[in-house]
């Protein structure tokens, strides 16, 4: 009787059971060992700290980036206010950094049009500058009766509670230099 090695036997029996079993592939007959240790998603990423852009508590987060792409954002355990914990918005910050609904190009809507046109920055900035200057020049009021007022009544500015301090400062500086008096933002509402 030929000494049936287990391997050969397996191929015979598996082949002959009506095809329910595939031909055996690389065989390891030992019972399963724990599969290889799962690697951490944030293995080999560069980490930077940031502060959550949502409410005013100011929780700390760590952003893990691998070759330029955000792969994970979670709480910063060293931050004294949140000690690594985050609410539902904070933990969802990843879907702000990685979200195909994010605006990626300048858009322009012509008067009366019903859709956006994609434009370039080179086109948009001069156009915006032209309009700001035209409206300022048209609605600038140097005198109110005998009082000098130097204000632009035709331009209003809204916004900035989610901007950085430096950005808010520059907008405050630029707006006042343009004479804007209707300067408001979310703190009012």
């Amino acid at each position, binding site marked *: 009787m030929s000494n049936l090695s287990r391997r050969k036997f397996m191929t015979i029996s598996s082949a002959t059971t009506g095809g329910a079993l595939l031909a055996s592939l690389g065989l390891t007959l030992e019972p399963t060992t724990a*599969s290889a240790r799962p690697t*951490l*998603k944030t293995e080999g990423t560069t980490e930077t700290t940031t502060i959550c852009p949502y409410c005013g508590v100011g929780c700390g987060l760590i952003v893990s980036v691998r070759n330029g792409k955000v792969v994970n954002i*979670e*709480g910063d355990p060293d931050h004294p206010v949140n000690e690594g914990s985050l609410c539902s918005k904070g933990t969802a910050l990843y879907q702000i950094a990685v979200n195909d609904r994010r605006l990626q190009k300048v858009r322009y809507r012509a008067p009366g049009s019903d859709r956006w046109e994609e434009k370039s920055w080179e086109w948009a900035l001069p156009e915006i500058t032209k309009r700001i200057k035209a409206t300022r020049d048209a609605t600038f009021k140097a005198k109110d009766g005998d009082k000098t007022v130097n204000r632009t009544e035709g331009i209003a500015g809204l916004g900035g509670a989610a901007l950085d301090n430096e950005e808010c400062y520059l907008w405050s500086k630029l707006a006042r230099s343009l004479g804007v008096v209707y300067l408001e933002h979310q703190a009012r509402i």
Partner: protein
Amino acid sequence: MKAMLIDTTRCVGCRGCQVACKQWNGLPAEETVFFGGPGYQNPRDLSGKTWTLITYNEAQVGDHYDWVYGKLQCMHCQEPACAASCPTSAMEKLPEGPVVYHPNQCLGCRYCMLACPFQVIRFDWFSANPYVSKCTMCADRVLSGQEPACVKACPTDALVFGDREVLIAEAHHRIEDNPRKYVHHVFGEHEVGGTCVLHLSTVPFELLGYRSDLPEKSLRRWTEPAMKPIPYIVVALSLALGGVAWIVNRRDKRLVEKWTKQVKEMQ
């Protein structure tokens, strides 16, 4: 053995854990609709994309209506019924605590779903290559010494991660400290042989959607008596049947000899 203590009395329902689980495990969001659940609960149930879910339960506590939150997820049993039942060991209990799933070994037989006492395993019912899915206690984080993503996200320490014995002691300590506040039972300490996810609550556990009528013996113990004797049966039957065959064949042989003798005499 690592474990999680969920003190539902500290939970404020911010659902940071529910999103942190999706963030770390890369689970997509679900298409949901407001369904007037008792509170703001959404989605309705665990699924392939939602491995943990906060339930909002409105209950009369003392003199006013209160919101009580439950956290549905895999309980990571000490002796998991899913691992015991899986024909290809696709579900595996790691010594560190988490019960993990190896999708490439899964046949999709769903026996684990039937066996699971906490009804948490979910299946891709509408996929041509379906897998099951459940919380893995962020095994990759736990194995590298970190805490699961949901525990880290919890602001009020409603979720705490650590050694199982330490957490059980802490849970009982909390019950003794304010007996009026807690139901005097640590859910998961003994259920189906004990689990690595322990719950404390101020309202009866059924109200949070947990089953409180589960046997204390782990479900694996129920199938063991049927599986243990297999080698003995094989041996016993091979001996017995061999013996029978021997006897029967000898009787037939003698019968045939007698019969052929008769035929020879008749000729």
